[in-house]
């Protein structure tokens, strides 16, 4: 079973600004839970004019409290009480020639409990004259939530086809628990997505009014405030 959140939106900023804001979005006033951002890899392909980036974010809060209550302590680890830290792997591709950016973020830990993959596609509209035009930027977001709690796998994402262990009743209650956890994740995604967009808008507003200097100054203040 999988639950999916999806949304389409249009930013009132040029494609160039939106992609820059994507790389610059932390820290912002809506991202107090983001503790750090590191670049693991960055590759530029001059032939296609594409830029590939892999980043690692560290965020506060691992699981929603309601999920923590459903889980055995052994799964959470000794120190975890739901108010812990979570690593997020983010990958992105920007194609500056064709005018699109594709992004993907996923959690690194507890993927059996709840695997969350967020994917976004940013596009400059067909009628746009270039990356700096004022036609705005379209963004499509999907968040896929998948719980495999109770299923035994060698590797978390390996084979969803494997049948769960146990009798019918055990399978049924396991499926019901997975569905509950996915619903809680879905609810959280639908609350956090608007905040993520507001954060992007603040960074883009700073870019519009003061350029990079204003962004960096704003970041310094956000960092001090968090």
């Amino acid at each position: 079973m999988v639950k999916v959140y999806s949304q389409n939106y249009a930013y009132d900023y040029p494609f160039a600004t939106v992609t820059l804001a994507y790389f610059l979005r932390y820290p912002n006033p809506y991202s107090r839970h983001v503790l750090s951002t590191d670049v693991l890899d960055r590759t530029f392909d001059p032939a296609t004019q594409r830029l590939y980036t892999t980043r690692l974010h560290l965020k506060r809060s691992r699981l929603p409290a309601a999920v923590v209550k459903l889980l055995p302590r052994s799964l959470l680890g000794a120190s975890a009480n739901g108010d812990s830290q979570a690593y997020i792997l983010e990958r992105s591709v920007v194609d500056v020639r064709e005018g699109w950016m594709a992004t993907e973020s996923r959690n690194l830990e507890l993927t059996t409990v709840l695997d969350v993959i967020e994917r976004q596609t940013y596009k400059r509209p067909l009628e746009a004259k270039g990356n700096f035009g004022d036609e705005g930027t379209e963004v499509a977001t999907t968040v896929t939530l998948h719980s495999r709690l109770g299923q035994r796998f060698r590797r978390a994402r390996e084979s969803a086809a494997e049948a769960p262990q146990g009798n019918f009743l055990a399978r049924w209650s396991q499926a019901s628990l997975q569905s509950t956890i996915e619903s809680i994740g879905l609810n959280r995604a639908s609350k956090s997505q608007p905040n993520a967009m507001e954060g992007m808008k603040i960074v883009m507003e700073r870019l519009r009014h003061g350029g990079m200097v204003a962004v960096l100054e704003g970041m310094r203040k956000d960092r001090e405030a968090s």
Partner: protein
Amino acid sequence: MSASLAPECNESKERYDTCFLRWYSDKFLRGSAQTNDCDSLFRTYSACLTRALKDRGIDNMVQEARNEAQETDAEHLVKGRIPPS
């Protein structure tokens, strides 16, 4: 600028980030980039970060997640979403 997970890497990260942002806005976004100008600054930062991930015992977890992400790219290639890296 966003902080590194390792305070000891903040300085080299900031130097790299500053270079990258300039390259990204002045060259890449204008379609005039020929090379990634910040490679040597990235190598310095990356060496620090690689050590930090190892010290914290998360280097394997990160590598596994990266491999896994690459594997699932196949699905999205079919749907035409994320091109191969």
